[in-house]
């Protein structure tokens, strides 16, 4: 069960890196989303994948009697999903504002903060 999952994570990461190398911010944004989802799958795979056996302890026992699914990765992924989703929402607004204010979604053309012909500091009085 792990191998197909690992391959899928690899595809997610490769696609994410490819998209993030683009100079267009919308693609970079999609790359960030894919990366976040790839990481969630990675967390899931790292918790070891098992059949759907809920980690419930039967009455009269103190520990689970069979191997059960690991509940912790779900807690981790849930946290990570919330975080990556809210960051995606923020970045989406930011990129849209950048497109409105700077008139481009090309990262190479965003030179307001770092002008291309910034004057050199004076060499003397």
């Amino acid at each position, binding site marked *: 069960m792990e191998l197909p999952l690992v391959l899928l994570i690899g595809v997610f990461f490769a696609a994410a890196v490819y998209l993030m190398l683009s100079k267009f911010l919308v693609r970079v944004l999609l790359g960030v989303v894919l990366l976040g989802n790839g990481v969630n799958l990675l967390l899931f795979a790292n918790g070891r994948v098992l059949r759907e056996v809920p980690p419930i302890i039967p009455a009269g026992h103190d520990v689970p009697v069979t191997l059960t699914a690991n509940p912790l990765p779900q807690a981790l992924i849930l946290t990570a999903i919330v975080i990556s989703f809210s960051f995606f929402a923020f*970045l989406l607004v930011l990129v849209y504002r950048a497109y409105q204010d700077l008139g481009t979604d090309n990262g190479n053309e965003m030179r307001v903060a770092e002008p291309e012909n910034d004057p050199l500091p004076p060499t003397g009085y």
Partner: protein
Amino acid sequence: MAVTPTDLSAALVMTPVAPADWLVVLPPAWCLLTGALLLMLRKSLHLQAWLAVPALAVLVLIDAALLAHVATNGPATMVMGRWLPPFGIAFTADLTGVLFALAGAVVALAGAVHALTDIDGRGRRYGFYPFLLLLMAGVSGAFLTGDIFNLYVWFEVLLISSFGLITLGSEPRQIDGAIKYAFLNLIATTLFLVTTGYLYGIFGTLNMADIAVKAAAARAELPLMTLATLYLLAFGMKAAAFPVNFWLPASYHTPRVVVSALFAGLLTKVGIYALLRTLIMLFPLEREELSFVIALAGAATMILGALGAIGQSDIRRLLGYAVISGIGVMLAGLSLGSPGGIGGAIFYALHSMIVMTALYMAAGLAGRLAGSFDLNLLGGLYTRSALFSALSLVLFFAVSGLPPFSGFWPKVMVAKAAMDIGAWWLVVVVLLTGFLTTIAFGRVFALAYWRPAADALPDETIPPSALVPLAALTALTVVFGLFPDPLLSLVQHAAQGLADPQAYIGSVFPGRT
């Protein structure tokens, strides 16, 4: 029907938490509480500052009390929901974490007072003070948590608050800077999460003390080198180390100056703290393998930062490069791994938090007095305010590492530690960086302060609420430069506690050591 009480002592802490241990979680809890309160009162603009400044003053007191507690009793631990570690999330305050948290609180308090006049009503309406307190919740939480996934969550808390602060005002150049800052920092924290996922897969635990024990026991068969290298990249990116530093000079000069000051004091240092925590405490042998790489990155960061500072005409961008150069010194200390090297890195981080914040404040005031941030246009500041010029000069000396100010001692510690292992080239780089930084800041003083003003200066004066925090931070660098002994001994103990985490582990698992 009578229920027989189950014996839960194998899973839960049965004794009530000692009152002193509440101090461990109080800094982030206090910041979250007051931040939420300010968020609810965001319409009452006049109340914001009156609540935020006392709240941060209380935070400084809490952190100081925690420092006193930890310095006398050793590391203190509190677990969430009474679940025994490693199952519950543990907050563990050791000397390193508390020193960073205290310095961060001092910086935030100074920033909040400075913002009284730097952030106008518009900035307050957009929520400067709530963001600042939530940022401090993230920063304090990151410094005090003992759980590596929890560290990731605090990273995100401080990151989203910093997004709010950097876009405050929404000018085009801020949007431009924020884009680069936001994307690259988000990628760095995602990388941190990737590594933490692997770490969980390898160890089956997220508690840092538990990881330290398990890593020491089964080092040979585990792929720990992968984890150490990935953490180095992720936290190096957060700390703006070469070659992943380019987001910092692209963004730090764009927000309001007090926001830059807070960022320079707080954010990159969280990256350095996380590097210390992971590479020194969790993976010391792997760090030793990597030490040449870290030293090389540190040396490149120092030189690039200093040269970048020389090449800038905007003093705020110059300061951005000075932040980077300081990160290089800390990395050099980290690469050495000896108590002197780690202690030097911690000391330099504390010094840099104070001095870089003060320098950004000074740059903001210089810009306000002279009407420009451009070295080609600045001038005549000395005739405007001799006191302000004197404070600036002290800070310029401190950031260059000249005695008798606080930047001198950590550089001595790092250089001494480098000489001890015969890394002469690293000593040369540290000294050369100091020299280049002196040139960069000496020129700022000559041009902006000594040179007569070309045009008539705008009719501005420095309000006391802006000058007092600057003077207080400057006084701190003078005090720690002249009387370094108390801080030196604290820092050396902190470094020992990181390199040999027996006390840390004993605090999380009483009875296991």
